[in-house]
């Protein structure tokens, strides 16, 4: 293959597939390279794909009978956890029952593969049906640079040439480092290990236990005891006949507190409330993957340079401010914007950073960078000991006294609350946290 592509995309995760879909629809000649056996083979998420953007890639995807997704969220829960108890904010609404759904539960090995089939269909309908490709089982070893401008990629001793490269390699971003947009060593400070089990149930049991109807689904985030004193949080999402149960835990914090992620996962599973929730289930997969925190300090210096764009978690585009992890929807949107920028660059015949900086601009104007910028305080707060330790303890302590009826004179809630505050914190700390919280949300 001596011919030059308009674009080579590295990585068939959500960012790469989203970019590929837009390129195919706009009759661009491109190569999408994935090192896994198939798209999704190497990918792990919790995972809920939040928002409605999926319909921009595959319009009315929900009409497909057996598509690549698991369930549609109509029930959300945020749970504070101490050693014995859980105290939850719980919201369920038929408002979420109509398409376009705003939360789609996915298992990546199936979902990415399905999305890749859709991209292939779009390629087949494009002007370059025979000249654009999705190539799997190929690892890109190097982005080839000439005069500091990307002009191709190398895999083994084979080279492919192109006008532009979209690096959509995910969080462990070796190529982003090689092209000089990210430091060679990224410290553990704002990085977490995500770890999870997929647990299978009899489908009827699953539906009854989680009050699911048809393809409705539940998402549950956990703060507190779930992570055994380490910064981070837990999650539980319902799939068709399995659940994804797991957590994210700060790598630096584990290093300092001498904790192992697999032990923390067992600690979480042994909590009495979780134990009841997963009773009778069978673990069918154990997985782990690094995940960003949403802290901007870890992001690459810039998201473009001559001939190159970084999309998705390769650019650490993610936010986790407690109520949800948003990495996949950010990957999807940044992939779309990245591809749109490449299309424009081709029209203008200029793939230098002069044109490609429009990617950064469009991303800054989108909800992706707006949310990352606006919620930095919330990210810091979620990763502070107050949030993963003191507040959950306080809330659960209050819950325990509030819900206890023991044939004694009952105290007014305010008094109960004040006793819980004294035990786990102080009013002054609480005011400070409340102030920080109000500011950050």
């Amino acid at each position, binding site marked *: 293959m001596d011919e030059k592509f308009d674009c080579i995309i590295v990585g068939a995760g959500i960012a790469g597939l989203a970019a590929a879909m837009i390129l195919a629809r706009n009759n661009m000649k491109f190569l999408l390279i994935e090192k896994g056996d198939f798209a999704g083979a190497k990918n792990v998420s919790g995972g809920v794909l939040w928002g409605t953007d999926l319909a921009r890639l595959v319009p009315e995807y929900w009409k497909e009978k057996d598509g690549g997704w698991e369930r549609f969220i109509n029930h959300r829960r945020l749970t504070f956890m101490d050693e014995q108890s859980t105290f939850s904010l719980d919201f369920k609404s038929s408002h979420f029952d109509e398409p376009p759904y705003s939360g789609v539960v996915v298992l990546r*090995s199936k979902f990415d593969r399905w999305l890749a089939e859709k991209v292939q269909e779009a390629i087949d309908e494009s002007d370059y049906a025979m000249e654009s490709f999705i190539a799997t089982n190929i690892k890109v070893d190097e982005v080839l640079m000439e005069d500091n401008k990307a002009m191709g990629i190398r895999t083994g001793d084979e080279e492919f040439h192109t006008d532009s490269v979209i690096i959509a390699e995910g969080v462990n971003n070796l190529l982003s480092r090689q092209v000089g947009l990210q430091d060679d060593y990224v410290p553990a400070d704002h990085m977490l290990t995500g770890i999870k089990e997929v647990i299978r149930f009899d489908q009827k049991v699953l539906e009854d236990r989680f009050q699911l109807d048809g393809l409705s689904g539940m998402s549950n985030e956990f703060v507190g005891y779930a992570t055994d004193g380490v910064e981070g949080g837990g999650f539980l999402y319902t799939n068709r006949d399995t659940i994804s149960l797991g957590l994210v835990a700060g790598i630096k914090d584990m290093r300092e507190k001498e904790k192992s992620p697999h032990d923390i996962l067992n600690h979480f599973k042994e909590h009495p409330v979780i134990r009841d929730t997963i009773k009778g289930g069978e673990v069918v997969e154990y997985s782990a993957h690094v995940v960003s925190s949403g802290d901007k300090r870890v992001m690459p210096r810039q998201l473009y340079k001559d001939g190159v764009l970084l999309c998705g978690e390769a650019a650490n585009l993610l936010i986790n401010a407690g109520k949800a992890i948003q990495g996949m929807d950010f990957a999807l949107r940044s992939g779309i914007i990245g591809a749109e920028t490449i299309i424009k660059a081709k029209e203008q015949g200029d793939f230098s950073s002069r044109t490609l900086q429009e990617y950064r601009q469009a991303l800054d104007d989108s909800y992706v960078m707006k949310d990352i910028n606006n919620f930095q305080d919330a990210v810091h707060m979620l990763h502070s000991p107050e949030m993963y330790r003191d507040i959950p303890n306080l809330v659960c302590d209050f819950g325990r006294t509030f819900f206890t009826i023991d044939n004694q004179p009952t105290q007014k809630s305010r008094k109960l609350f004040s006793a819980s505050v004294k035990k786990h914190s102080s009013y002054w700390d609480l005011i400070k946290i409340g102030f920080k919280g109000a500011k950050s949300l």
Partner: protein
Amino acid sequence: MKLLTLSERLGLVSYRNQAKSDIKPHIRVDTDICNSVCPHKCTTYVCPANCYTMDEDGKVHFQVEDCIECGTCMYACDQGAVDWNYPDPEIGRGVTWNFG
């Protein structure tokens, strides 16, 4: 529900090129650094696949076979001992997730 041990958990993972005995390791660890200057030896507990182990003499060893390509050790090691890469699809090991 019974808790699983780490080896039971790893038993559920589908590895690539499992039949090949002569695989090319995708991660190289300079264990001289581990065993001389590293104050915490944290990879021996933060690796979710237990690829880094410590023997009775407190010496760190690394074996790549069970690695699930998560990336944790690349960040956790602040001593410069970990040379991290993705496995080669043909001659490396690495994972293929069934669920993901």
